């Protein structure tokens, strides 16, 4: 038994629903009690889907348990086939139905439905949503994909994008364009938009693009082994990763890796003088493994940030994220415990968080700006505009998204210049965070003070701030004060000092100058 407050991932059958809902012509019959139908709203509300997910729930009740839940399942299966006439059906059990052991797969197979029936075994008490999606796609592909003749033109399959995925819709469009620029067509994109008959012709492609290892890796590995399709290993998020991806595709296909980069703006935006203020910003990264790994590289190599901590919530990616962390000289935080992530952020007090919607809330509370880089998704993560993460436009989008929550460069200088001015007092905050003027509860600037104010000082243990030094510290603009406090304390500890004076403050400043 494990006490959980908030979860990063849903149960595995929700992963299966993400695959079913992404596809067309497929229906999912789920042996589950009525409450499990809540999952429909994830798709209709968060993703604003204009149709119900193609899922029939048996919605058994307590009184059915004594009688025949198996019959209930078979009726639901038959009715679903009659009503929706899918090309294929997937069947499975949610956590509760797993306990009553009705074997939906076995029952559905004996019903003689005139379409393929694919049974899913998703252990609800061991695994989670990403596993559910990955396993479901794998089972569908394993059952339906057959060796077929290759297309004449060089084509690939895009593997991994699902319903409720973080920017999957736009990543597909961006990658399709990028590959087209190289001379590669897309044979099938799966599961998003694919029908069971599309799945059958996956083997016609020359290679697979593994977009999201979380949801597509098992499928790509199986196709590599059984259909002889190699797959790309680099996830093209960020400038460097996109270029590596292009090189990988070129190596697989023999096509030229030289493509037009005129749409790519991140490198110049990062090099331009206004971005100087981004230098060495201390960032903390948390999310799914794929997005964190990509974001770490972008943060360090393309934005000039300092990565002070990183981690992921999906254990399937633990090994890779540990390796990434090691490369950054860090220890990875692999956890699904939201409170643990919060504690880590609090201890590191980074200047910015790159995380999920959960970390965005942590940031709000601690007064640390946050940009979202990964699922679990929120209605905000489905913007109306084109907003990919992958490819060149993805890099542009990421630059804007990450810079937006920060105090802007020129504004930072102005704040510094006018820090004695009454309009620029600490609590005034940054002007583009409009909520401040109206005293909105979720103001960004203020909690920085709270988190780093006098009350927080004893945290650092034995070192004591003398009142002169404390006053001097307050003259430093709020958005760098946390860093100044921490640097000074570290410096004092290294020097074995018990007290921090004004001199110590400036000694430390000189020590850390860069």
């Amino acid at each position, binding site marked *: 038994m494990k*006490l959980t407050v908030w*979860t990063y991932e849903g149960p595995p059958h929700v992963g299966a629903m993400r695959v079913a809902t992404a596809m067309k012509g497929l229906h999912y019959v789920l042996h589950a009690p009525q409450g499990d139908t809540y999952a429909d709203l994830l798709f209709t509300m968060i993703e604003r889907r204009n149709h119900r997910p193609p899922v029939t729930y048996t919605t058994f009740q307590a009184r059915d348990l004594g009688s025949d839940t198996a019959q209930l399942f078979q009726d639901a299966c038959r009715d679903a086939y009659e009503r929706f006439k899918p090309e294929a059906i997937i069947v499975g059990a949610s956590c*509760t139905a797993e306990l009553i052991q009705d074997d939906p797969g076995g029952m559905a197979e004996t019903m003689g439905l005139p379409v393929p029936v694919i049974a899913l075994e998703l252990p609800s008490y061991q695994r989670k949503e990403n596993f559910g999606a990955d396993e479901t796609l794998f089972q569908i592909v394993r059952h339906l994909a057959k060796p077929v003749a290759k297309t004449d033109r060089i084509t690939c399959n895009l593997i991994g994008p699902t319903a409720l995925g973080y920017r999957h819709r736009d990543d597909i469009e961006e990658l399709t364009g990028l590959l087209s620029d190289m001379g590669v067509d897309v044979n099938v994109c799966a599961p998003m938009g694919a029908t069971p008959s599309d799945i059958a012709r996956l083997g016609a492609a020359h290679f697979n693009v593994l977009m999201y290892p979380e949801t597509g890796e098992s499928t790509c590995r199986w196709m590599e082994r059984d259909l002889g399709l190699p797959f790309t290993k680099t996830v093209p998020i960020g400038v460097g990763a996109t270029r590596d991806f292009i090189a990988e595709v070129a190596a697989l296909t023999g096509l030229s890796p030289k493509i037009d980069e005129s749409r790519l703006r991140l490198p110049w935006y990062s090099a331009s003088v206004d971005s100087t203020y981004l230098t060495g910003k201390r960032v903390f990264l948390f999310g799914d493994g794929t997005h964190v790994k990509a974001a770490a590289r972008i943060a360090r190599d393309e934005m000039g940030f300092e990565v002070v901590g990183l981690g992921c919530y999906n254990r399937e990616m633990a090994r890779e994220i540990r390796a990434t962390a090691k490369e950054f000289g860090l220890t990875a935080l692999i956890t699904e415990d939201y409170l643990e992530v919060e504690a880590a952020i609090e201890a590191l007090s980074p200047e910015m968080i790159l995380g999920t919607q959960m970390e965005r809330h942590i940031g709000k509370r601690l007064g640390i700006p946050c940009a979202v880089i990964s699922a679990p998704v929120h209605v905000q993560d489905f913007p109306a505009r084109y907003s990919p993460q992958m490819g060149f436009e993805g890099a542009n989008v990421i630059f804007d998204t990450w810079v937006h929550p920060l105090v802007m460069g020129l504004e930072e200088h102005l704040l510094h210049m006018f820090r004695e001015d009454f309009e620029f007092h600490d609590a005034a905050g940054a002007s583009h965070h409009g909520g401040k003027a109206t005293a909105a509860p979720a103001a960004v600037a203020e909690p920085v003070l709270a988190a780093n104010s006098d009350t927080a000082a004893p945290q650092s243990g034995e070192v004591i701030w003398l009142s002169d030094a404390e006053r001097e510290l307050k003259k430093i603009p709020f958005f760098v004060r946390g860093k100044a406090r921490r640097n000074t304390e570290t410096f004092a500890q290294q020097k074995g000092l018990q007290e921090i004076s004004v001199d110590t403050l400036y000694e430390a400043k000189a020590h850390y100058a860069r």
Partner: protein
Amino acid sequence: MTVNRPIPATTGCRETPVLKQRGQREVFCGLTGIIWLHRKMQDAFFLVIGSRTCAHLLQSAAGVMIFAEPRFGTAILEETDLAGMKDAQDELDSVVAKLLSRRPDIKQLFLVGSCPSEVIKLDLSRAAERMTQTYAPHVRVLNFSGSGIETTFTQGEDACLASMVPVLPKSEARELMLVGALPDVVEQQAVSLLEQMGIGRIRVLPAHRAADQFGVGPNTVFALLQPFLGDTHAALERRGARHIAAPFPFGEEGTTAWLAAIATEFGVSQDVFDRVTAAPRDRARRAVAQASEGLRGKSVFFFPDSQLEIPLARFLTRECGMTAIEVGAPYIHYNIVGPDLDLLAEGPTLSEGQDVDLQLDRCREARPDLTVCGLGLANPLEAEGLATKWAIELVFTPVHFYEQAGDLAGLFSRPLRRRGLLKLEAAE
């Protein structure tokens, strides 16, 4: 005293045959109630003993994720608990011990059963008894089921309140108890109106804090604030309390009838009643008239959701000029919604339970002007050109009593008004 209540032209819907179909139900389970109950009971913690699905539901159903450390959580059952490798009761003890040591502010702990805990027959009442002994007098531990195999959406609140009734002390006092978790501001309005009529000693179940406890006994009379409190109703009657049946306090008419039933019970004179209610009644009438302008002559179709459907259909048809096509409810408790059914004019189909696909067929066929349904159905129906109102908002928003009557009508008229405002058709 008597109240001049317009009697419907027909006999009402109490005798109307009910359409019962068995198929897929598209409803929340009772765990959802924790979302509002934990806000209401400020020193209570709700510990669901369930699966990852339960935890995911709680965070998704709230619509917004608050992400503070909330006063609810899920003890997620793991493979070892199910395989009997560990004693689930011992595991639960250690989870609770950890929880209570971290949260010394907790005075009431609810162990909430879920589908998996019911199926594996984890005895939570035994656990609650044991823990009450361990943690008394500091923490009181109760249990109820919010499982989807036994409860639908608002029945979770019912199960929770019903679990609190047996531990109320015995009392001989002649007291009025209001039952149901409403937002504080609304609860205050009701209490204030009744106090102005001279009805003192008003208790509310659930109380804000465990310490605000009160008794129950044969001299207790109670009025329900919500129509879904069937088990709580039964539990209170078992303690000797007597129910004051009345239409529910939605809209001007419902509020007046609800107050009047209590006033009659306590012998309040017509003069006093009129003096206390005249001004807010008048305000409510005006507010409803204004907010319901866009609803007059329009039709409404209810999918089953919160059990508020019948009283709301009464409000919409009698005060807002709408026609009801179908009124679907997950359950119909005749002894509770009877007075509302009496006032609801014959005509609509009454349905109990659900086969969602067949019901959707009927809805598409009828093409109502407004469909009241859950979040899973709303956008798909909008995409088919049907205006919808999410039912869950009716539970989360203050809608009871006079001062909210206009807001209640507004909740229904806004989707229609919005459709009128948007000019998005492509040029011909």
